């Protein structure tokens, strides 16, 4: 009899979701879906608000990457005001955006995914969590905490607080950087760099223990999208969107942000609140593409910092074209942390970084504005329209997890088909189905970071809806 397996909630991701796996009569996986089960509604609730409130409002979308929303939103407001912000303000926005990337990547890598990588996908879920990691690899856990502290401290130094800072504003930033704060941040960089430099070689060896996962974790040809600078180098704040194919060929070299709607389509499915974005010229769902750290390393033709540039070159040797396995999002995250640390150092060495001219002031001069930036998980796009009074009348947000929705669903199906045996369910099989989602580090909101032994309900459901079997794993079970 055909059956359905439900994994609800998916654990160790940012938010609430579930996975369903459809089995045929023989217990073979026929389909699998990743469902986002929470609804936020930010695009509607902001209607009627003054446009200049948008950065602060939109930052509330997420407690993990509020800075990225601040930056994309502020850029959309810059466009509405029709201002070019001071160069120092742009550099400072870059610094805080990269600090955000560091703390978010550290959370994803060390807290959420390292238990799988170091303790094993089949390890007892009772210990396959951050506590288990702290007991077996305390030095790595300490390093993860230290890196996350680095990112949070930089955000706090610049923005005044770690979560939802209001320092990034339309027209620039609200306060210049002081010499004292600059010195503090510069002084923290060597320690953080040392952590990444000892973590990378260690995990390169760890990744080699997962050949099956590398081969099957959303490993398929697809497009990739991300920002690049004017020379094709990796970029997280400005530049233009580039799309490459699985062979690494540039399909779109410079998508103007104000024309994104000619390149990116969005659709909704009845089984998820999350929109699915796709490359419009190829249609839905063939226009599947991926964003985020893996995509950024794939679309870039250079990484212009010494240490990360070297690591990027080695990374790109994994495959002749684009690196296709989503398992390598983990690897890409470490390289991006390295890049971000080096780049923050470069930015803080700019001669005018302490300039007090950090904000442009203007009234609305356009009735529409679009802001694009790279969040830790991928490209973030904020698009607003206002009325003559500067009030928001329409907003559209495309977030990284939406860009990746099609790819995550295909990845869940690929992993389920490879690992799940409907006749002999084992926890490790289902953990791998969750782990492919974790590789993308989807941010479904800021609300939940579930660890290890989360409550997990697996149901076998007949086509008529009858529950044939059920296994419940409670948070306090032994």
């Amino acid at each position: 009899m055909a059956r359905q397996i439900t994994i609800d909630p998916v654990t160790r991701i940012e938010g609430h979701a579930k996975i369903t796996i459809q089995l045929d009569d023989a217990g073979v996986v026929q389909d699998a879906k990743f469902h986002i089960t929470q609804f936020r509604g930010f695009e509607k609730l902001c209607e009627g608000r003054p446009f200049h409130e948008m950065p602060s409002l939109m930052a509330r979308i997420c407690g993990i990457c509020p800075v990225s929303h601040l930056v994309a939103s502020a850029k959309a407001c810059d466009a509405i005001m029709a201002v070019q912000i001071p160069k120092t303000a742009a550099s400072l926005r870059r610094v805080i955006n990269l600090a955000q990337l560091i703390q978010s990547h550290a959370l994803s890598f060390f807290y959420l995914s390292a238990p799988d990588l170091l303790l094993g996908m089949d390890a007892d879920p009772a210990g396959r969590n951050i506590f288990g990691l702290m007991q077996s690899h305390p030095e790595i856990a300490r390093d993860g905490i230290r890196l996350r502290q680095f990112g949070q401290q930089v955000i706090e130094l610049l923005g005044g607080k770690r979560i939802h800072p209001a320092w990034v504003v339309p027209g620039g930033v609200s306060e210049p950087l002081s010499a004292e704060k600059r010195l503090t941040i510069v002084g923290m960089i060597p320690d953080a760099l040392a952590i990444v430099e000892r973590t990378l070689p260690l995990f390169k060896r760890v990744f080699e223990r997962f050949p099956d996962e590398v081969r099957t974790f959303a490993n398929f040809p697809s497009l990739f999208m991300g920002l690049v600078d004017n020379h094709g180098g990796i970029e997280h704040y400005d530049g233009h969107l580039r799309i490459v194919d699985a062979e690494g060929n540039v399909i779109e070299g410079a998508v103007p942000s104000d024309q994104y709607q000619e390149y990116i389509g969005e659709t909704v499915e009845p089984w998820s609140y999350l929109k699915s974005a796709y490359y419009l010229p190829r249609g839905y769902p063939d226009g599947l593409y991926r964003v985020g750290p893996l995509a950024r390393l794939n679309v870039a033709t250079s990484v212009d910092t010494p240490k990360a540039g070297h690591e990027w070159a080695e990374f790109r040797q994994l495959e002749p074209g684009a690196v296709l396995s989503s398992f390598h999002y983990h690897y890409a995250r470490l390289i991006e942390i390295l890049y971000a640390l080096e780049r923050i150092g470069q930015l803080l060495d700019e001669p005018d970084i302490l300039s007090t001219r950090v904000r442009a002031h203007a009234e609305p001069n356009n009735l529409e504005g679009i802001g694009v930036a790279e969040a830790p998980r991928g490209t973030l796009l904020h698009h607003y329209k206002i009325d003559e009074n500067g009030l928001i009348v329409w907003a559209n947000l495309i977030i990284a997890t939406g860009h990746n929705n099609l790819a995550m669903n295909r990845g869940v199906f690929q992993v389920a088909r490879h690992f799940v045996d409907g006749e002999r369910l084992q926890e490790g099989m289902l953990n791998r189905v969750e782990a492919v989602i974790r590789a993308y580090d989807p941010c479904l909101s800021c609300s939940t970071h579930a660890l290890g032994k989360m409550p997990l309900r697996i149901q076998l459901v007949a086509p008529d809806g009858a529950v044939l079997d059920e296994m419940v794993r409670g948070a306090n079970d032994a």
Partner: protein
Amino acid sequence: MHSARLVIGYGNQLRSDDGLGRIVAQQLRSDLAGDSAFADVVVLAAHQLTPELAEPISRSRFVIFVDAREGQRPGRLDCRVVIPSGNGALAFSHDVDPPSLVLLARLLYGSSPTAVVISVDGDDFGYGTDLSPEVQATLPDVVQRVRDVLADGIAAQSAPTAVGVGHRSGGG
């Protein structure tokens, strides 16, 4: 070197009574400033307890957590000793409980100080920036209790009970 005493007031100030811990922390910062008896006291206000706090906790000789929690009697003040524990029951990475944090400090940094939780039963954890009348009325008592415990240690409590794994706040 365990020289400092640490007070961590935590909660979500957009969730009514859940913001109590942070309000207490803000008031303590102001009250204790310049008082030589409390010169070594570090006061942190946090939205939530996160694993990163294990590091400053490990460097402290005494820690007080201040929080609002779901309870039967709004405004009831409670003080409990923290028993370090984790046992894999931690369910959320950015919402760690005090016993887990103290255990993390021991596991990662080799030191777990004496710690207590001073908590107040909340009445309203819905959207809002104001404390409920019952919790608002308790605010001076909470601040005073923190000062008493800082001054006299756990002995300031008549009958402290232990709090282990599973202690959770009402909200953020």
